[in-house]
């Protein structure tokens, strides 16, 4: 189903995405996102930052969604209030006002390692694209790291390339 394509045929370079060490604060990551994507008018899919440890091993990824969730305490600890039924309009309007308030600034000082999505699944450059597709769908991943010899981080697989490869096979007559 992958037309014989392997991961290295579709992966993209790791420097397509900004790198940060795990001790950077969320605020620092926010500034980097603004500079690297928003100000530069670059909107890759997904927009993400790669988080590394002190030995330059990939630890995880940080999407815009991860960042926003990390800045609002209700997302960190789901509360009753954050789950008010949709029909309760009055209560909702009050809640909207209290979301992302002054505690957001304090949360911005937390390290990115606390809010990133940990990199748990990998593929090798020679693996079939279908394996990447399986892992990404099974675990709801936006980016899948490619490791050479289970160690060296050499690339990333995105859903767009996976889709492209699989869809070619579907449409093939």
């Amino acid at each position: 189903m992958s037309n014989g394509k392997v991961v290295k045929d579709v992966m993209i370079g790791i420097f397509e995405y900004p790198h940060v060490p795990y001790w950077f604060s969320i605020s620092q990551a926010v500034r980097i996102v603004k500079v690297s994507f928003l100000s530069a008018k670059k909107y890759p899919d997904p927009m993400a930052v790669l988080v590394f440890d002190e030995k330059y091993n990939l630890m995880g990824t940080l999407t815009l969604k991860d960042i926003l969730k990390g800045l609002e305490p209700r997302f960190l600890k789901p509360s009753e209030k954050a789950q008010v039924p949709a029909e309760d309009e009055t209560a909702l309007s009050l809640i909207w006002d209290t979301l992302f308030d002054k505690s957001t600034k304090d949360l911005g000082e937390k390290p990115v390692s606390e809010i990133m999505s940990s990199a748990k699944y990998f593929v090798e450059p020679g693996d079939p694209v279908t394996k990447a597709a399986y892992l990404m769908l099974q675990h709801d991943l936006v980016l899948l790291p490619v490791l050479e010899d289970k160690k060296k981080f050499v690339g990333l697989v995105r859903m767009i390339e996976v889709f492209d490869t699989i869809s070619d096979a579907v449409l093939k007559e």
Partner: protein
Amino acid sequence: MELIDREDHQKLYLQLYEILKKKIESSEWAIGSQIPTEEELCKLFNVSRATVRTAVLELVRQGYLKRQQGKGTFIFRNMISEGLTMLTSLRELFFEEDLHFSTNVLARTVMMPVDDMDIRLNIEKDKHIIYIKRMRFIENEPVLLQETYIPYHISPLLLEDDIENNTLFDLFEKKYGIKITKVKNYIEITHLAKDEARLLSLTEGAFAVLLTQYFYSGETLVMYTRSIKRTDRFKFLMELERKSA
């Protein structure tokens, strides 16, 4: 008051830098006093915040101004000694050349520039940087904490080199053919932050020597290093000779 000349082809920030420098050198702005905020300077000279920021950072880098976190920017000194030629060889200027050092690499990773690192390294804000943090020991005693920032494009392979047993200087010159032709050194006394104190086995707030170095190959800035050394282990030789008139 001297104003920015928009007909002048010199970059705006350089003009502003010269104007502010004159104010400091002429003591119009006294040592220890606080300079106007970025916003006030923007209004005063009708320039952008980026122009003000670059000019002020250059004055900080030159040692005229000092930034204090949360307080503002202050006049630090009103002259920089010039006209002396440093004879000390470049290698001697490296703390890391001390043969008795043993090295522990605490971190070697890649990051984006934050705070003013893009200006310090003269790179775009969206360019990657190699970050190296090393602890130097003499007879198992921690004496020097060194953080190094290198634009990634200068030498990507540094991520894989043996930097415990080779100096960055040697790797640059011998392996990558990048000849270091100029080093700007700034030495000052600093107070140790919590993490720095822990690594140097000292107490938070204790005095230490801070050496800030900018390494150039030709006109290209190839490396910025921030070294913190215990004061009891500090010895630095500079041999200076005045150029003949």
